[in-house]
């Protein structure tokens, strides 16, 4: 599998004013065989003393540890052990943070984490706190590029109040760890809180128009220019009206869907619907390559049930009819009795002995 990717991190206007550095960080890793891609994006808390160091350390360390999972998956059936592996890697990252902090108090390094591991057969998202990940499938027919209306997403988690979120550096991080299976996807957007505000609305629903024009804009130009394009979008003067926070966006697109045509028409198949994959109830990975959405599973199950019952009743009817005919064939009296009952003078058919 090859992905084309573009990424940019731009400092927020509020941080420019106060002279604080950009506290967003990200890292992208490929497996040795090129079949897997691991990405981690971190948003350091503005209130944390070493937020920049925290987000950098977590993004780099976690992406490198996550890509190791690809070796394991190649040799083992997907299962609950993937959960354990991810949790173990978070523990390892927290250990490294402790070394950096010189103690057990990680408050000065508060950072969120959005990450994913992806292959041709799907993958999963790992998420603590805000920021977001979303993606979907694409159909290309002639000049028409159609984005599937089903969007897979790992939503931001805020506290009750919108200015609160959760960090990998907190004692109860495991309560907020969400591991979400993802089907194979053709496009993906990954962002910190500031980056997400470009493509998610205030209720965290995807902004259809932005996503469509963003994908159209990027896929119509050379992938080598993607970083510069994303940086331009994030630095636009209008962007400061969207957010004054640091902003990071990473964009992925399947390379085989890119053609040379510049006159392609982009659209969504229908208004997008967000499917919240099953494992939003955190830490429940059972398979890495299933489109595990409660909606589709229910649909498939109920369809299967209807088919099963239909076949069973048909079989039952056939058996009853055959038995009935056989009884009639063998028992002449019964045959005539039925004839009387329905007031017809039935003659015994040939072959029935009296």
């Amino acid at each position, binding site marked *: 599998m090859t992905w084309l990717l573009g990424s940019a991190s731009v400092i927020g206007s*509020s941080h420019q004013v106060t002279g604080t550095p950009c506290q967003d960080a990200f890292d992208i890793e490929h497996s040795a065989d090129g079949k897997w891609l691991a990405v981690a994006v971190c*948003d*350091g*808390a*503005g*209130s*944390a003393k070493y*937020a920049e160091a925290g987000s950098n350390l977590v993004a780099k360390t976690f992406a490198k540890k996550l890509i190791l999972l690809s070796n394991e998956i190649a040799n083992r059936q997907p299962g609950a052990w993937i959960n354990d592996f991810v949790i173990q890697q978070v523990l390892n990252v927290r250990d490294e943070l402790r070394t950096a902090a010189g103690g057990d108090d990680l408050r000065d390094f*508060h950072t*969120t984490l959005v990450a994913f591991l992806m292959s041709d057969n799907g993958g999963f998202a790992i998420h603590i*706190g*805000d920021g977001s990940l979303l993606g979907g499938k694409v159909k290309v027919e002639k000049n028409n590029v159609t984005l599937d209306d089903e969007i897979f997403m790992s939503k931001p988690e*805020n506290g*009750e*109040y*919108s*200015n*609160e*979120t959760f*960090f990998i550096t907190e004692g109860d991080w495991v309560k907020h760890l969400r591991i979400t299976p993802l089907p194979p996807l053709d496009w993906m957007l990954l962002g910190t*809180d*500031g980056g997400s505000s470009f493509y998610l*609305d*205030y*209720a965290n629903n995807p902004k259809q128009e932005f996503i469509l024009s963003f994908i159209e804009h990027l896929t119509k130009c050379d992938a080598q220019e993607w970083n510069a394009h994303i940086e331009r979008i994030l630095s636009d003067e209008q962007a400061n009206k969207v*957010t*004054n*926070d640091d902003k990071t966006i990473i964009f992925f697109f399947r390379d085989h869907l890119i053609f040379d045509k510049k006159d392609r028409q982009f659209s969504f198949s229908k208004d997008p619907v967000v499917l919240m994959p099953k494992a939003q109830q955190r830490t429940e990975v059972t398979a890495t390559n299933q489109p595990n959405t409660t909606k589709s599973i229910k649909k498939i199950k109920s369809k299967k049930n209807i088919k099963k019952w239909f076949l069973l009743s048909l079989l039952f009817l056939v058996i009853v009819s055959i038995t009935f005919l056989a009884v009639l064939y063998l028992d002449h009296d019964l045959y005539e009795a039925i004839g009387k009952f329905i007031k017809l003078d039935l003659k015994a058919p040939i072959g029935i002995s009296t």
Partner: protein
Amino acid sequence: MTIDYSDNPNQRTPCVLILDTSGSMQTATSNGGTRIGALNEGIKLLEQSLKEDSTALVRVQLAIVTAGGPQNEADLMMDWTDATHFEAFPLKADGSTPLGRAMRIGLQIVEQAKKNLNQSGISYTRPWMMVITDGEPTDTNEEWAAAVRECREAEAGRKVEIFTIGVEGANMSKVAEISSKPPLQLEGMKFRELFVWLSASLSAASRSRPGDKLELPSTDPWRHVGI
């Protein structure tokens, strides 16, 4: 109460003001005015300052509950109003100080505000409740104790951020019971400075993002530093 949120999907910072409008607020001040006059001027300035701030304008929500006044009751004088629609109106001082009852109304409407915002899919920062008094609550002991207990519980449960301000003449030990944060005493009649501070603080709160530390402006311009 119904508010149409469709024209303004911004996150909100609700703030309810619990204002003592008892008879003692008619006390004359050194510059020839009255306490209630100075309070009214301060509220007018709050309106101006919020309207000059393009972010606070669309994010701050206000409500006013009075204790006392011509009705001699605890009254919801103004239900939740976005800063952009807020128009200051003069309050009249009279009667006793049912502050405990006013605070309970405040806590109730704070929860109501969250419910309304949730239903409209609008996110919000932690609501504020600011209590300003110049006297002594006239609630019964039981009423006062229940109100204080509710305030402390709401504060400990992180349901609301409570600020308490005592104006000259206030029984500060009673005011101190309301919140775990010590009460601040207003220097003279610096209501104008107090409300400019409130506007700037609400503005900061309304801009705060996840993980930010909320830095409020200094209270020095209006706070009495006594010995």
